[in-house]
């Protein structure tokens, strides 16, 4: 029971690494920088393993295990402490974040080896780890918000890592600002929670919320509004409709960043927050419905865009948006542990997809356009095999990780009372699209004819420090699903849901009754068939009839260009929000109200005062004759005033 008392060690290690590399790393050779960066994260991973070991021995009444370190903000009855906690959900997140994070750090030592700013990269990456760990270990919403904003900052720094490129700097800024829009909601949600519960600590809020009567559907009580506001933050961080626009652009960052931040960990923070606040959400059916619908819609919407993208990383980016939608769909129908399970398996296979894509890009000397690849399977065998494993996992091939987690989500959606069948139908169709665009990616990249200039590009396999993480993640993409192998399989038990049971309560939908069993098996069969369909369509289009996609695109020009241009959403936002706001600020507020209006009025007053004084000054001309005139006029005036009672009309005159 040593490390449980020093929970702070886990986030502190990467923070230390970030500080050391950031302050001194500039003059160090790469291997020292890597040692600090990888070492601190590795130690953090080991510490997390130790925490998990100790945690399993804790008696149930001591969970969540909490440590209070210091008071960070206090005013009146408000207190925000630097309080860390560990419960089952935190353990899962810790494992994912430090485990996958460590692998990606290792991979980066190979991938970034020839890049400038090596120390800067590792410093930022460690900083990200610090904030992400704060996020998942925080015991109150304010500290969670520290991590929340902090990962946004690290993301900003890492997306803009190649800051000499305008597109990269733009993308970083866009990510931060769009996230801030979500944070606006998140903050208001916190304020409402504080007004309602008088605290922002998880313990008191959830304890009190548990006893509150749930809102009816369509009723906007406190819990519903608070949940919706928190979810607004989640849509920003986790790239859901309508705030998903930053994530595809975030691919400007180095590929390990895309894998770690924009696939495996940071973007899942929104899902984590919803799951963490499940007590609030389950008391707010309207909010749950919104979460499910937004998640489902995003999953479908992003998958359609992914169908036609040609940049290998962009396909994966839209795929990530889509898969995050699945996680929200799960939360929205109340299957929180299924959502977190998909979060975990997705972290494995999506990190793998990105890292493998990075390996491809590495092999192709920076080429990211799949139209200029092809036939790489034989040249970079390890990359090919691992990427194929990840593709099978995400497509839902039986036995692979994604099969179990996606299956659990679709099954829960199907059973959901409100609109379950519609959600299920969209979810299933999205699975078809997923399978199609992923195999499209595989076929375009690794199969078919070579479409690049073999004289200029010598496709080569990546070094071992990049391949080893790929292989480990591939293994996890296969076995990672068996934690939750549904009970209909022989000997299978949903260990995952059982482990998370104390957090989410026993009301999980999966497993149990015999009726559900046969249904689940049927649905699983349907899902596999759907995935196969996607595979065959991709096979037919990209292997057997390679000319077909082009002619299809021609015959469906309208739909194709709409998808290729991502439904013109960026253009729409620019035209409706960004440009009018800038125009309003520049032409109306600044040049109109400020300069012409207020300042004009002020200067006008000043000028009229000057002008008035100027007139007055003219009377003081120094001309004796004009003074004489004034004296006479004055004298006359005095006389008139003095004698006014006598000479006034009707006064009787000088009688």
């Amino acid at each position: 029971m040593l490390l449980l008392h020093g929970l702070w060690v886990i986030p502190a290690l990467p923070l230390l690494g970030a500080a050391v590399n950031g302050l001194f790393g500039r003059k160090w050779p790469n291997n020292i920088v890597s040692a600090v960066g990888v070492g601190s994260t590795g130690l953090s991973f080991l510490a997390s393993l130790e925490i998990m070991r100790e945690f399993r021995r804790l008696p149930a009444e001591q969970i969540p295990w909490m440590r209070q370190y210091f008071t960070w903000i206090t005013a009146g009855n408000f207190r925000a402490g630097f309080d860390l906690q560990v419960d089952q959900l935190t353990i899962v997140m810790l494992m994912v974040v430090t485990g996958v994070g460590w692998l990606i750090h290792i991979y980066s030592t190979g991938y970034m080896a020839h890049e400038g700013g090596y120390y800067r990269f590792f410093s930022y990456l460690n900083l990200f780890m610090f904030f992400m760990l704060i996020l998942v270990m925080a015991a109150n919403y304010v500290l969670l918000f520290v991590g929340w904003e902090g990962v946004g900052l690290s993301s900003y720094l890492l997306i803009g890592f190649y800051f000499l490129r305008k597109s990269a700097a733009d993308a970083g800024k866009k990510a931060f600002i769009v996230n801030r829009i979500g944070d606006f909601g998140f903050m208001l949600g916190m304020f409402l929670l504080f007004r309602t519960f008088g605290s922002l600590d998880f313990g008191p809020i959830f304890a009190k919320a548990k006893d509150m009567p749930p809102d009816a559907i369509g009723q906007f009580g406190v819990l519903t509004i608070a949940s919706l506001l928190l979810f607004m933050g989640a849509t920003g961080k986790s790239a859901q409709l309508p705030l998903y626009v930053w994530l595809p652009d975030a691919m400007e960052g180095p590929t390990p960043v895309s894998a770690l931040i924009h696939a495996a960990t940071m973007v899942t923070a929104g899902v984590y927050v919803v799951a963490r606040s499940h007590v609030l959400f389950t008391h707010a059916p309207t909010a749950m419905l919104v979460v499910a619908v937004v998640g489902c819609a995003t999953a479908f919407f992003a998958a359609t865009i992914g169908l036609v993208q040609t940049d290998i990383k962009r396909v994966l980016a839209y795929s990530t948006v889509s898969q995050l939608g699945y996680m929200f769909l799960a939360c929205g129908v109340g299957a929180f542990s299924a959502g977190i399970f998909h979060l975990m398996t997705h972290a494995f296979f999506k990190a793998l997809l990105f890292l493998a894509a990075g390996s491809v890009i590495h092999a192709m000397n920076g080429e990211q356009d799949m139209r200029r690849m092809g036939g790489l399977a034989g040249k970079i065998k390890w990359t090919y095999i691992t990427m194929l494993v990840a593709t099978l996992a995400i497509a839902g091939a039986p036995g692979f990780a994604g099969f179990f987690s996606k299956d659990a989500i679709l099954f829960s959606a199907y059973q959901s009372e409100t609109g379950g069948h519609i959600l299920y139908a969209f979810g299933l169709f999205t699975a078809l699209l997923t399978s199609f665009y992923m195999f499209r990616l595989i076929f375009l990249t690794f199969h078919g004819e070579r479409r690049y200039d073999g004289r200029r590009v010598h496709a080569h396999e990546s070094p071992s420090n990049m391949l080893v993480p790929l292989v480990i993640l591939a293994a996890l993409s296969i076995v990672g699903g068996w934690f939750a192998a549904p009970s209909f399989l022989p000997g299978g038990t949903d260990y995952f849901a059982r482990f998370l049971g104390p957090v989410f309560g026993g009301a999980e939908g999966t497993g149990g009754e015999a009726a559900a069993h046969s249904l689940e098996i049927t649905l699983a069969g349907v899902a596999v068939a759907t995935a196969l369909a996607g595979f065959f369509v991709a096979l037919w289009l990209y292997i057997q009839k390679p000319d077909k996609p082009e002619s299809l695109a021609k015959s469906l020009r309208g739909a194709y260009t709409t998808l290729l241009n991502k439904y013109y959403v960026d253009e729409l936002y620019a035209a409706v929000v960004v440009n009018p706001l800038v125009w309003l600020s520049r032409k109306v507020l600044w040049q109109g109200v400020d300069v012409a209006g207020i300042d004009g009025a002020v200067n006008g007053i000043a000028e009229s005062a000057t002008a008035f004084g100027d007139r007055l000054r003219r009377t003081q001309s120094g001309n004796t004759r004009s003074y004489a005139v004034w004296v006479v006029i004055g004298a006359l005036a005095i006389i008139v005033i003095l004698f006014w009672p006598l000479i006034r009309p009707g006064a009787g005159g000088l009688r």
Partner: protein
Amino acid sequence: MTPATLHFVSGGHLLTVVIFFPALGALALLILRSEDHEWIRRVSFTVAAAEFVLSLLLIPGVPLGSGTYHLEEFHPWIASPPIQYHLGVDGISLFLVILTTFLTPISILASWTSIHARVKEFFVMLLLLEVGIVGVFLSLNLFLFFLFWEVMLIPMYFLIGIWGHERRIYAAVKFVLYTMAGSILMLVGILWLYNATGTFDLPTIQQMLQGGLLALSPRAETLLFLAFFVAFAIKVPLFPFHTWLPDAHVEAPTAGSVILAGVLLKMGTYGMIRFCLPLFPDASRRYAPAIAVLAIIGIIYGALVALVQPNLKKLVAYSSVSHLGFVVLGIFALQNISMQGAVFQMLAHGISTGALFLLVGMLYDRRHTFEIDDYGGLATPMPRLAAFFLFVALSSLGLPMLNGFVGEYLVLLGTYQVHWKWTAWAATGVILSACYLLWSYQRVFFGEVTNDKNRALADASARERWILASMAVVILWMGIGSPFFTRRFATSCQTVLDQMQRPWAYEAAAPRPTAAGPHASSSALGSSLERFGSR
């Protein structure tokens, strides 16, 4: 050191020393030869640094959890009319004084190489400015307060008018006229209060008003409130009284901008807390919604106008309008948490915006331009300065764990408890501040260097690094260790809110005090003298 020992050690004159020590320094500067620039700088920096250390002695002077004035000094000064030299410090003024004494040596360091003409006069003015500002924060007598309030204008006028940039005269005159317009109203208000009470002593007037010895008719209270409020609102500046600010900032030398944004603006919000709320509570309550609306307009408007500024310094100036809007909102939400947030935001803004002006000044020293378009890609030639700039920008946009977050968060949180709609509008400022800061940062520092003049710019010098590092340390400390500050002014904030309570009913309890004016005033003065005699 307990307050009592401190008081004893300083001979009971610690506050006087803290106010006038820089004036001594200014005198010492006068002795030096004007050509002896190096020594002038050294002496003024030493004086300012010593003043900073002196002001730190005030911290043990204000015990935790106390909401009253400490280290008070009370001496008869002018017999007729009766004006006392009355000083005191509480949790709110404590850190404003320290902020002033911290920013002054920093500004002196920042002016080390950038001031070439009339060097001696420059530093004399800077030190005299410090006297005026610290005096404002420590005065408990309305006359004395007004005196310092006006005295501070003179050095600032010269700082802008002599050492400023192209349109300095216009800006200096505008600054003075704006402030004077408000001051005159305040002077009328002060004289009215004297006429009604026979004293200029703030605590005495406060007691008389709260105890029912003096009852203001609603009309009189409203007029008085407005007289004070407008003077303060111009200083803050609250929308729509803000147009002097961009001009003054752009034209002022770096040191002037730092002090102006760092502390001068806070004299306005300080005045609101110290005078408007406790003396005229009913009017404050009545006008709070209107003022909050102006504050919210200021937050959004300032941010939007900052967004489109082509001039970097003007951008920072408009961002002040936005940030000070949070302070005013926090004050007029009339709520403990939001008031603490407002005070904290005053300090945080002083540091962050002061640092931003320092950084902009450092860029100006190198390139002699404030136009954003003249820059671009500076992160390549000056990585250190770029890193500091980003750090400060992040603190200004309210990143958690840095100082800007705490104030903004508490203001919004506190305001939400009573007026959620105000908060919802004001919180959009959180989005907008990210927009203007990150956008301008990108245009100045990211991308390739496009202008050849920027290619070989020197990175931060050792002196600049010291300046920026000390600012960064404070930013971080305030962001992580905020209770060190809030615990010291929490009770004072509550005291202000308590002083707004009037335990008696207007019609029933109060005699007609205006009729009994002379009598009331003499007894009030008696009571205040008794208060100090009994110590």
